[in-house]
Structures are given as C-alpha cells and as structure tokens.
C-alpha cells in the first residue's frame, strides 16, 4: 500500500512537471545554465588543483656543466648536493643521454640527426636535474650551486617561470571559481525554490480539496518533491550535455588559440580531466539537482499545508 501511494505521487509529480509546460521549460533552462556554470567552475577548480600537484612534481632545475668537467667530478658534486636538506633528488644526465633525448623528439628528428652528424656525438653538455622538496626553494638552491661550483657550471636553467605562471592562473581561477560557483549555486537554489512555489500557488485550491478528501500531508507533498527531483534530473542531464559540448568543441579552440604555453597546458589539463571524470561530474550535478529539488519542495509547501 505504501508503494502504491509512492507510485501514485510519483506519477502525479511527473504530470505536474510536463503539464506546467513553459514554466517548466523556462525554469529548467535557467537551472541548467546555473548548474552549467557551477559545473564549469567545479571542473576548472578541481582540474587546476590536480594540475598544480602534477606541476609541483615536475618542477626542477637543470645544472649544465662545462664540457671539460669529468663525469667523476659531476658524480662527486651530485652526491654532495644530495646531502642538502632542501634537495629532494639529483639525476645525472650524461652527454650521450642528452643527445639520445634530443634525437627522440619526433617532430624534429630529421633535422637533428643531420645536425648531429655535423657536430659529433658529444656536442651537448652533461647535466644534473635537481628537484627540491618544496617549490619555493629553487631560488636558494640555484644560488647555492652557483656559489659552490661556479667554475664547473656552464649555466643553470629552471622551468620555474612556467610553473609560476600556471600557479598564478590556477590560484586565480580557483578563487574566482569558488566565489562565482557559490553565487550561481545560490541562484540555482532560489530558482528551484521559486518555481516550485509558483507551481504550488497555481495548485493552492487543490491542496484544500486534497485535505478535504482525506489526503495526508505527506501524500499532498510527495508529488512536489518528485517534481523537484525531475527538475534536478532534467537539468543535470542538459547541463552535462552542455558541459560535454563545451569541453569537446570550445576547449580545443582555446587550446589552439592560447598565446602562452602555460594557458595551453592548463586548458589541456582541464580537458583531459573532464573526459576522465565525466560520469562523476554528471553524478554530482544529478545529486545536487535532486537534493535541491527535494529541499525546496519540502520547504515551499509548508505554507499551504498549515502544518
């Protein structure tokens, strides 16, 4: 009997949803947009967090040695450096390895192999690739190395610049995403709430009838809760589709058109992140939409039920 009533209220809610016609559509569109924007910020936010962690892992400085410095000497410096508290690891890249790596870069292979034939096999310097324990210590480390081994070193290169840039973008997008996300979340909640209230207003005479024929408050209420769930379901699906379209069609353009390397990396990261977690994103939107619907359904009807 409980199930029968549940099924009846479910059907009722579904009827309300499609009988409302334009009101439903208008609401669903606005809700979809809100969820979409919340979704965009959520993806960008989470993706940039992941990205930041990855980047902190790949940050390093390369210390290039003068060609006359022997391998033994470099190894000595290496073990010396490894004893520093700030340094996480130091990896030796010999001249041959450096050449090997260069040769493996596919798109310029032909040009390189011709060039290598000209200059010989040991044209590139040997190097140590050093990673720090914390990303803000690279400055100190490179200064220390320059101070101790200035004579043997040709140059020190770090990819810190790119890292800093990405760091900046990430922080900014995270903060903006959080604020805008909260705002749109609030809008979404208010819209659902309001729509359900409007629907209820148009049904207010029916509530009286329902109570007079002996419908329990829960029975009167359930169709609206289901209606809220339908809004959540519907908007979660459409918002996910829009998100999918955005990431699939808009992001590639952004990646292609990005002026700076770091922005490119950033968009690529967001892109791959989305496709990896598309179901998770959908699930979260769905859950969120439905919870919102249920809560607004429950709150909005209180007025009319005299409870």
């Amino acid at each position, binding site marked *: 009997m409980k199930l029968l009533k549940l099924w*009846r209220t479910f059907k009722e809610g579904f009827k309300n949803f499609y009988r409302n016609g334009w009101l439903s559509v208008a609401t669903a569109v606005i809700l979809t947009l809100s969820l979409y924007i919340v979704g965009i910020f959520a993806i960008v936010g989470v993706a940039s967090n992941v990205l930041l962690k990855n980047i902190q892992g790949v940050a390093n400085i390369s210390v290039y040695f003068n060609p006359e410095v022997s391998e033994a000497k470099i190894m000595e410096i290496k073990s010396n450096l490894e004893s520093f508290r700030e340094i996480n690891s130091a990896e030796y890249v010999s001249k041959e390895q450096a050449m090997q790596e260069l040769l493996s870069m596919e798109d310029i292979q032909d040009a390189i192999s011709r060039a290598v034939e000209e200059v010989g096999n040991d044209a590139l310097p040997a190097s140590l690739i050093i990673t720090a324990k914390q990303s803000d210590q690279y400055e100190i480390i490179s200064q220390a190395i320059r101070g101790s081994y200035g004579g043997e070193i040709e140059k020190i290169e770090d990819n810190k610049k790119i890292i800093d840039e990405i760091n900046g973008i990430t922080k900014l997008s995270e903060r903006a995403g959080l604020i805008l996300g909260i705002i749109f979340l609030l809008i979404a909640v208010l819209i659902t709430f309001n729509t359900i209230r409007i629907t209820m207003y148009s049904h207010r005479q029916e509530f*009286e009838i*329902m109570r007079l*024929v*002996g419908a*329990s408050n829960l*029975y009167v209420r359930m169709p609206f809760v289901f209606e809220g769930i339908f809004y959540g379901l519907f908007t979660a699906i459409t918002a996910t589709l829009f998100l999918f379209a955005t990431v699939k069609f808009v992001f590639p353009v952004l990646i292609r058109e990005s002026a700076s390397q770091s922005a490119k990396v950033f968009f690529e990261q967001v892109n791959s992140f989305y496709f990896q977690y598309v179901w998770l994103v959908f699930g979260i939107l769905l859950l969120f939409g439905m919870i919102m619907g249920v809560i607004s359904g429950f709150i909005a009807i209180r007025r009319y039920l005299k409870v």
Partner: protein
Amino acid sequence: MIKFENVTKIFPGDFIALEDIDLFIDKGEFISIVGQSGAGKSTLLKLIYAEEQPTTGKVYFEERPLDGIKRRHLPYYRRNIGTVFQDFKLLPQRTIFENVAYALEVAGETNAEISEKVPKILDIVGLGDKMEKFPKQLSGGEQQRVSLARALIHRPKVIIADEPTGNLDPISTWELIKLLLKINDFGTTILLATHNKNIVDRIGKRVVALDKGKVIRDHKKGKYVI
C-alpha cells in the same frame, strides 16, 4: 453523534463567529442549518470537519473530542465525513472518474477497488455515462453531483453540504436535495447549510437557525424562519 459543548469561535480581530453553541446531532438526522450570510453556518460546519478549532468549548464526534486528534491523524478522521461546497471544488485537470477516484487513491486503495467502486457511485448520482468528461464539460448541477459522489465514496457517516445549491438552478437544486434525502434514508447523517427557504420548507426536517453566531431556533420539523 456530533456534540457541541459551549462552543465559541472568535476569529482574529475579535470577530465572534459563534457564541456559546450547544448542539446535539443524532445519528441519521437530516439537519438544515439556516441563517443569513455571516451568521456562522460555515464556521459551525468547519468545526465538525476540524478545518477550524473552537476558541473555547469542545466539539465531539462519536464521543471523541476533536481537539484530541493529532494533526497528522486529521486526514484519517476526515474520511468519516464527506463534504460538498457551493463551488464544487473539483480538480479541473482530472476527469470525473479521476476526481472521484482521487479520494480513494489518497486512502491507498488498489486500482481494482477503485475501478469497481467509482462507476457504481457515479451511477447512483446519475453520471455513469459521463465518467471520462472533464468538470468544465458538465453543467453546474452535474458538477455538484460529482462532488457529492466524491463525498460519498468513503461511505462517510456524515455528509456536510455547505451551500451546495448556491450555484444551481431550481431543477438541479431539487435533484441534489432528493439525492441527499435518499442518502439520508440509508442512514447517513446530513448537515445542510443553506439560505434557500423553498427547499428547507419542502424538506420538512429539523432546522437549526443561526443569527450572529447564536442558535436562535431549533425545531424538529422546522420551516425556514429567521
């Protein structure tokens, strides 16, 4: 069966709708409640189906005080009482069948029971052939009979009819009253609030007259006199 004990109802703004009402309604009675607009007829009826609570005094239904019913049990209590109103109160988006069926749906009756009971009751009120129509497609008299069918579907002990004929032409009015009398013959208690002098006089049963919230007359075989 229904008892009013020193009932006073004061609405916000110190409007006294009912004052010191003592009334006893026996099982199977047909009572016409008459009085001018604002005399307190509707309020009296609302106290019975617990839409309103008395400010002081008590209302009993089968010896049970109504103020002892918990709010969430009210829907179950109301299934003892069928209500009919001047404005019919039918759900416009549902067919006649669905309107009547709704009262059974909310009580959790199965579809099989519903499709058995609803046509029967609609036959009784003479609308068996209009089940698939919508309220808008029916005349006022027919709509009121749908409303009565819905009130009857729970086999209530009491039918409360608040100005049921207010929107009806004389012929429909008399048809409805005849139905009420027939239902009363089967043992259902009927409370009819009206200011239609003609029908009260023709019914020739107990008449309770209200004026300014007080019972001014209560006759066993009464006429419409205020």
